[in-house]
């Protein structure tokens, strides 16, 4: 445990010093990695810890981003409020969609969520007068302090770190433990007095909230939003991040998100078929490291503790 703390501290220190020696473009990429890691980890709360087939998580990311962007561009409210409202709207959407989908289990839940999520996407994609349609919204005004690349990076780093801390607390809480119990065995959970669906619904709202935070960070880093953020293929990509890194470890999705984003950035310089490489890597991981990259590492170096989520 102590070793993990030291490693985390070093990681945080390294992340803080990145903008000092990295060119602007890489600082931007680093910020994207951070917020994508937050997005993947928020999905993992539902899928890895809750065993809920959250197939369209990107919707909450997109709505978090659009909520923030619309507040910043269309209302005279202070920016801080906009950054807060985005995630709250996405938590609310998560609650509404959750109430509708939760009655179905497993794959059926996932299918219905994809359908409802696609409706949200289609609405955003078509509603030119309000959301900007397929153009999205660009040049979103931000407070000076976080409008510079370095400012945006540090803001992203701070919020991401805070969210990771909060999510880690949640995973290690009675609620988090109960959720893992439900994942392992919903029938037994109900037999010991746990209201399964109520817990799953709370988990969905929490996942939606943090997914929305990642969306609001994207607004800060990228200054724009577009409907592709919540297209279902992106949901799949986030899901792949969780699988790649390891669904049953807390930091697995972070590893997965880093690998995927960096792969796309650096390999796509050489070939447009970067996803071919991703496919090959993913196949190998699934065959040889079924617990994901980080899951494998944990198992390897801490036997006995290996599969503990």
């Amino acid at each position, binding site marked *: 445990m102590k070793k993990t703390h030291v490693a985390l501290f070093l990681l945080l220190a390294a992340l803080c010093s990145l903008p000092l020696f990295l060119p602007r473009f890489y600082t931007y990429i680093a910020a994207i990695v951070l917020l994508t890691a937050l997005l993947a980890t928020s999905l993992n709360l539902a899928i890895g810890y809750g065993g809920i087939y959250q197939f369209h998580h990107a919707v909450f990311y997109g709505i978090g981003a659009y909520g923030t962007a619309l507040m910043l561009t269309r209302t005279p409210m202070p920016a801080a409020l906009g950054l807060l409202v985005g995630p709250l709207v996405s938590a609310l959407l998560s609650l509404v969609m959750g109430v509708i989908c939760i009655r179905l289990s497993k794959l059926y839940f996932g299918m219905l969520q994809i359908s409802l999520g696609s409706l949200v996407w289609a609405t955003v994609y078509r509603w030119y007068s309000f959301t900007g349609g397929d153009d999205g919204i660009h040049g979103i005004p931000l407070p000076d302090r976080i409008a510079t690349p370095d400012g945006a990076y540090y803001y992203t780093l701070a919020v991401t770190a805070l969210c990771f801390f909060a999510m880690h607390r949640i995973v290690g809480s009675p609620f988090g433990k*109960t959720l893992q119990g439900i994942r392992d*065995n919903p029938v037994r959970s109900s*037999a010991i007095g746990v209201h399964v669906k109520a817990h799953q619904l709370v988990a969905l709202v929490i996942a939606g909230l943090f997914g929305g935070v990642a969306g609001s960070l994207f607004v800060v880093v990228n200054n724009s939003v577009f409907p592709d953020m919540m297209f279902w293929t992106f949901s799949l990509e986030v899901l792949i991040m969780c699988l790649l890194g390891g669904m049953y470890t807390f930091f697995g999705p972070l590893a997965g998100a880093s690998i995927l984003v960096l792969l796309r950035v650096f390999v796509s310089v050489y070939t447009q078929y970067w996803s071919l490489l991703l496919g090959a890597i993913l196949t190998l991981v699934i065959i040889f490291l079924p617990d994901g990259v980080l899951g494998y590492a944990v198992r390897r170096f801490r036997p006995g503790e290996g599969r503990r989520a």
Partner: protein
Amino acid sequence: MLRVESVVKSFGGFKAVNGANLEVGAGEIVAVIGPNGAGKTTLFHLITGHLSPDSGRILFKDREIAGLPPHVLCRMGITRSFQVVNIFQRLTVFENVQIAVLSRERKTFRIFSAVQGMAAEEVHSILRNVGLYEQRDVESDLLSHGDQKVLEIAVALGGKPELLILDEPTAGMAPEETERCIRLIRKLSDEFGLTILFCEHDMGLVFEIAKRIMVMVRGGTVVQGSREEVRRNREVQDAYLGETGEC
């Protein structure tokens, strides 16, 4: 404490439980026996709310409970173990029981407190009582089958039940494990005053520990009575004991 009156449950055209009657008094150990497919597990599912009956009444402490969901019944004092091992595989032995205790204490919605060490005393005492204390930090998936069946019971105990329902507690156990399980069931009844309802294939075990026995055949109750009454019953001998030769 528990009374089941002419309960019926059918799946499609098949009547899995057809007019079953059962009475369990406080503090008793009652066994349900019957050939495979007699409807024992379905009857238990009906009592614990995993299924709801088509007709008939189920009373717990004089309250109608038929059709109530499992988590509500658990809070009323009925918990159960399962025939097929039904535990939280990825969690440790300690955590398995801990969730049950936290659920009883209604703490499962606490999001920001740390779960580590919560309810440790009670969980440890349960694990000592069932003999799994040494393995408390082992991931439950890695336990032997016999130990997993014991953990089944330990998880049920976390709910501090008044009525404990065990669905074939010794199924698949080695002889020495069965021995241990019998001692455990006795202990739960004698020391903790639990009312226990169980079903079992092992006739030796049934006649050894059950004070009263209910015999089910083809979904219906043939007889319920003391060991002697059941042994003497001609219908039981014909329908079950004689025919299958398991006695």
